[in-house]
């Protein structure tokens, strides 16, 4: 029977013949693996210190030479922050240390000396399952003499594992456990899935009485955790991890409960109380205390997290921003200002590139029609209003259009003033805009004009990269509170811009696409904050523009749908 012949499943004991198809399948997969190893090896770095003594490993993640490794591989190079990276082309390249994450044992470096470096793509570590085939590349025992990496294979043998660190350093939280052989020297090297994407950075093994040799237990920090820290590391910062300042315990049969909460800290302030039964953290069901500790350890400081708890028979949801965990450092770490400025420039340039694409000259005049939809806690029905928007040079304005087509008030914003005037009575004295409306207009002006028209960073002083954040989108529908949607987490590059004594602006750019995701403007005197989200960037007359702008903080939340764009050079 044809179906049975090829199947060796059923013949438990007998020496079954291997069918030609099966044989071909094995050799085909072997060939694929050989090709995969050849494709990935050039992006793997043999890391040496400034005296060219080995040994650790790293992996390049973009063509400019940025790479990831373990913090403990670079820890000995923190004085001068320089070393060398060997690639499989046989050459040694200069290596500069950028930012570090000591608690999570990750760090970023940058190689220089080549126009375009080979690099690999980052995978989704949440999709890694026990039993998945993996490849580990690195330089165990510093055996490589030509800087070509060592390749080993194995399978994933555990996920969501927790490995204790030393104090607040080198904690492997929610890590991947695997049996591909890694040894001292492999630290900092990549763990690839079967598609050749990096799903983790290897850095730890369990050892037994034999000494520091692999016994089938290697651990890698997940790429999804590292992604959260990459904006800060790329900007040359010290990235700290976050904590809820809360303790949980296992209650047999009933999951996990909070047993301690530090007052006036993240968890408590968010609304948690001792005795709350923790159900979910960021949409993940929490199975045990270990699981909770493991998950919490993957977040940076100030990261927004969503908690679902059960109290007295009812489910409640809370949001908190995590407190920082201070790592122990041998020397105090001062961020390199040049690296930071370079990263600001890179992010802003990336945004400009994303929006303007190949357009040589950005349009100086923009006009659009807006349909503004209001949502509010009280209104049963959201109402709509129409506006006409216009930006020309340093001037931005919004004109209200009534239902019958007549023109309403005009709100104007420029470097000199932000005023509201009547279009029907032009002689009427313009009214000063309330600060929250100013903030909203300013945000749009920054997004559509200022951030697109600059030739050097000197025109944008007082900007710095302050690390990463997760995008917490605003929903504007009635009765909504800010809530993280169940879609994939979006990591942002956050650039801070201090505009005088008045405003503290934070620009959040999507770390992957470079589009502006949100602007938060804090009015310093009143501490009032306005968040403006930009969504659905799509093609408009040759450049990109957002379809929706959502605002929280200026009265009731509302959403603008931007239509009918008009651009003039």
């Amino acid at each position, binding site marked *: *029977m*044809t*179906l049975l012949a090829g*199947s*060796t*499943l059923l013949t438990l004991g007998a*020496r*079954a*013949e*291997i*069918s030609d198809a*099966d*044989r071909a*399948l*094995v*050799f085909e*997969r*072997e060939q694929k*693996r*050989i*090709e*995969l*190893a*050849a494709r990935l*090896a050039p992006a793997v770095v043999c890391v040496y210190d400034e*005296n*060219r*003594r080995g040994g650790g490993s790293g992996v390049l993640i973009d063509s400019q030479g940025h790479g990831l490794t373990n913090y403990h591989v670079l820890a000995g190079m923190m004085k001068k922050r320089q070393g060398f990276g060997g690639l499989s082309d046989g050459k040694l390249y200069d290596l500069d240390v950028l930012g570090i994450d000591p608690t999570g044992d990750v760090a970023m470096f940058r190689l220089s000396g080549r126009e375009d470096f080979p690099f690999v793509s980052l995978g989704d570590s949440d999709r890694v*399952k*026990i039993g998945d085939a993996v490849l580990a590349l690195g330089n*165990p*025992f*510093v*055996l*490589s*003499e*030509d800087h*070509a*990496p*060592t*390749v*080993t*294979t194995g399978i994933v043998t555990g*996920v*969501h594992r927790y490995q204790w660190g030393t104090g607040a350093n080198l904690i492997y939280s929610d890590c991947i456990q695997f049996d*591909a*052989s*890694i*040894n001292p020297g492999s630290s900092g090297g990549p763990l690839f899935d079967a598609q050749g994407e990096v799903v983790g950075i290897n850095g730890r093994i369990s050892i037994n009485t034999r*000494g520091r*040799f*692999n*016994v089938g237990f290697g651990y890698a920090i997940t790429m999804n955790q590292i992604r959260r820290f990459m904006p800060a590391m790329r900007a040359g910062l010290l990235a700290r991890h976050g904590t809820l300042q809360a303790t949980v315990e296992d209650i047999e049969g009933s999951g996990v409960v909070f047993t301690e909460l530090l007052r006036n800290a993240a968890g408590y302030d968010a609304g948690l109380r001792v005795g709350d039964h923790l159900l979910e953290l960021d949409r993940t069901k929490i*199975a045990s205390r270990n*699981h909770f500790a493991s998950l919490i350890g993957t977040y940076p400081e100030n990261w927004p997290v969503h908690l679902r708890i059960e109290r007295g028979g009812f489910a409640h949801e809370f949001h908190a921003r995590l407190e920082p965990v201070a790592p122990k450092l041998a020397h105090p770490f001062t961020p390199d200002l040049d690296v930071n400025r370079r990263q600001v420039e890179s992010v802003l340039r990336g945004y400009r590139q994303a929006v303007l694409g190949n357009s040589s000259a950005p349009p100086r005049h923009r006009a659009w029609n807006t349909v503004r939809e209001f949502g509010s806690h009280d209104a049963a029905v959201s109402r709509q209003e129409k506006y006409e928007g216009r930006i020309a040079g340093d001037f931005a304005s919004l004109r209200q259009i009534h239902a019958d087509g007549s023109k309403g008030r005009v709100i104007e914003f420029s470097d000199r003033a932000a005023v509201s005037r009547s279009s029907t009575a032009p002689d009427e004295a313009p009214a000063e805009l309330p600060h929250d409306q100013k903030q909203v207009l300013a945000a749009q002006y920054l997004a559509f004009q200022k951030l697109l028209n600059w030739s050097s960073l000197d025109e944008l002083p007082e900007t710095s990269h302050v690390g990463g954040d997760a995008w917490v989108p605003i929903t504007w529908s009635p009765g909504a509170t800010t809530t993280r949607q169940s879609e994939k987490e979006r990591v942002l590059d956050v650039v801070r811009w201090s505009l005088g004594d008045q405003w503290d602006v934070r620009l959040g750019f999507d770390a992957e696409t470079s589009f502006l995701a949100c602007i938060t403007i804090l009015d310093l005197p009143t501490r009032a904050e306005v968040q403006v989200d930009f969504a659905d960037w799509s093609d408009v007359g040759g450049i990109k523009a957002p379809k929706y702008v959502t605002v929280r903080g200026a009265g009731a939340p509302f959403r603008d749908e931007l239509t009918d764009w008009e651009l003039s050079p």
Partner: protein
Amino acid sequence: METQGARAIAVQGRIVWCNLFSETRVCCWYRLCLLTMASVLGPLVDRACALSIDRNAGENAQSESESTREEQDFQHFVAIQGLFREVADRVKPFLVRIETVGGAQPVEIRDDPRGPSPEGEIPSPVPRPQNPFRDSPGGGFQIADGPTTGMIYSSDGYILTSSFNFVREPALVSVTLTDGRRLAADVVARDQVRKLAMLKIDAENLPVPEWAPVDEVRVGKWAVALGLGFGGTEPSISVGVVSALNRMTGNAFQSDVKISPANYGGPVCDLTGRVMGIAVPMAQRPGELAGIEMYDSGVGFALPRERVDQIASALRAGRSFYRGWLGMTVDPQNQDAIVILNVADPSPLRTAGAKPGDKIVQVEGKDVRHFGELVQATYMIPAGDEIYVTLERKGIQFGVKLTLARNIDLGPLPEIEEPLDPSVPAIPPTDESVPPEEEP
């Protein structure tokens, strides 16, 4: 699948219904059952399969393409098992079991950390009393009494194996072939540097294994190591992949197969049963047992075909290879440069005109910045081979060609006229406890 009179309906492009009365009736029944039973067994199978922590609720329902892929994965691993067995069956006739009787355990001379450092030792700042050019096997390992593995090299009775078992200089060596014959064997020659040994037995028309072409040994390829070191007549199998080429100064390839005394001397084969290399212990330092400590760690070395052929032809002719020495000690005070402290007379360096105070800056055109790099550049070069060394004297560099020597061919180190550091005595103190044979 379709036959005459059958109606085929593609369901999601993969499963095909056909008329019950076609010739492929049974297959169709199977397909039909598959659809119905899958829904019955689905939950059962899901329960057996789900690990609650790492699967979200939405993912339990598997997509068509995912299950085809997983079936294929399973089938793939079942098939590989069969191929591993084929390799063992195919290569078994070429394996031999080697047993030795007698011999002493290698003496691991515990370093008395005194004295200027000879090459091959890490510099330490206090005088050493012992022979600086001794052969230390390295590894700190006691060789056990179990059998070891060898492989037929040529049909007239030459057997290749690893030299590690012969460090003991056993009184007697016997070789047992797969057909059961047990024969006395002579150790023809031994390569201390690349860790190979050649034996000879009185036998003819022996089957000879096929070697894989050199360019077919590639990183990522399956590697299967076979050995007889656990006793028994069936070879043990260990599997992995080729991890890297050109290791150990181009002398070996590396794989993550579990290599250990159980399979040293045996073949590392590809999935078609062709030999890619001979497994040996190796590390980036000299010593016949160096590298044993890495057994079963997923770091294992094998000598590839070109290297084996090259060495084997010399071994066959009775030529042994020994560790090659330059004949000097280095100044332990200087950690960032290699400064010659003393030159033995006679020695390769003496012949080349090197003097105390000279720096070694390059070996074979490659910079050597510190002592470790010098060891790395020279540890795989046997005595009798020539190397090109660049020295520096008073700022001026000059190159010399040296033929490395055996340690027994090195003369004594002359007394140092002027100590480089007043705190270091000019004449190393003698130690009466050192056995007389150790003196150069």
